[in-house]
């Protein structure tokens, strides 16, 4: 009972603020709505007993990435191009894409009871108090099975760091040198 209340609360907050994020005109309002969505998703992670991802989501996404977004939104003044030329077909194209995706969802919903793995319920998995400690299990898997992807991810982050610095650097200095 408590589980379903929590799920519907977090899911409702996530979907509602995601919809708000897409529809708000002001980019800063969108960013705040996305923060709320990410926090709700962190709650979903906690409900799925992924404690490490829960805290990573809050620290890294909400504390890191979203602060970066808000920083950039405030850095570039968005008030200047307030008049926007509308691409007329845009709504139509968006409607088509949404219709196609929603149709796919309905098809999946209708076929759900025919798919293999039906009746695969969470109740069948281990109860929460029998699970190994989440961070420990994650670290064991990350540093043994997934050691190579882990190293590649570190190289990727290094490249991204250098790339971001190069991209955001002032153009004048490069032409002088």
């Amino acid at each position, binding site marked *: 009972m408590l589980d379903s209340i929590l799920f519907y609360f977090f899911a409702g907050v996530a979907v509602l603020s995601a919809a708000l994020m*897409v529809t708000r005109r002001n980019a800063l309002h969108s960013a705040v709505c996305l923060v709320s969505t990410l926090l709700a998703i962190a709650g979903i*992670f906690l409900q799925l007993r992924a404690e490490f*991802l829960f805290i990573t989501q809050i620290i890294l996404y909400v504390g890191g990435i979203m602060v970066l977004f808000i920083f950039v939104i405030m850095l570039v003044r968005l008030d*200047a191009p307030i008049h926007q030329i509308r691409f007329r077909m845009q709504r139509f194209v968006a409607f088509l894409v949404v219709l196609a995706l929603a149709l796919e969802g309905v098809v999946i919903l209708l076929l759900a009871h025919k798919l293999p793995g039906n009746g695969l319920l969470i109740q069948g998995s281990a109860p929460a108090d029998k699970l190994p400690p989440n961070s420990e299990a994650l670290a064991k*898997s990350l540093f043994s099975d997934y050691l190579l992807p882990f190293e590649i991810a570190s190289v990727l982050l290094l490249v*991204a760091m250098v790339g971001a610095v190069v991209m955001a650097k*002032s153009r004048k200095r490069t032409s002088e040198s």
Partner: protein
Amino acid sequence: MMSPAHYLFLSFALFLIGCIGVVTRRNVIVVLMSIELILNAVNINLVLFSRIFGDVSGQVFALFIIADAAAEAAIGLGIIIAFFRNRETLLADEMDLLKW
């Protein structure tokens, strides 16, 4: 405990909203934020199946996706700042240098 279908539909709804954001919004920063939303919807799926099968691999992949999202945000925002410096705009409609 909820059934997996609930989580799948939550993930599907968030993915759909993210797609709508990518297609309809003209502000490039909001498009990037919609992409972050799509990545999070995928993460919910990964964590859900990790829980169902009792295997932490899904959570490891979700961790990699978060690292990728951080890299993508850093690069994307760097590109946005460089673009804003050159063209003084953030509208996707104005980025038509390659248009015929």
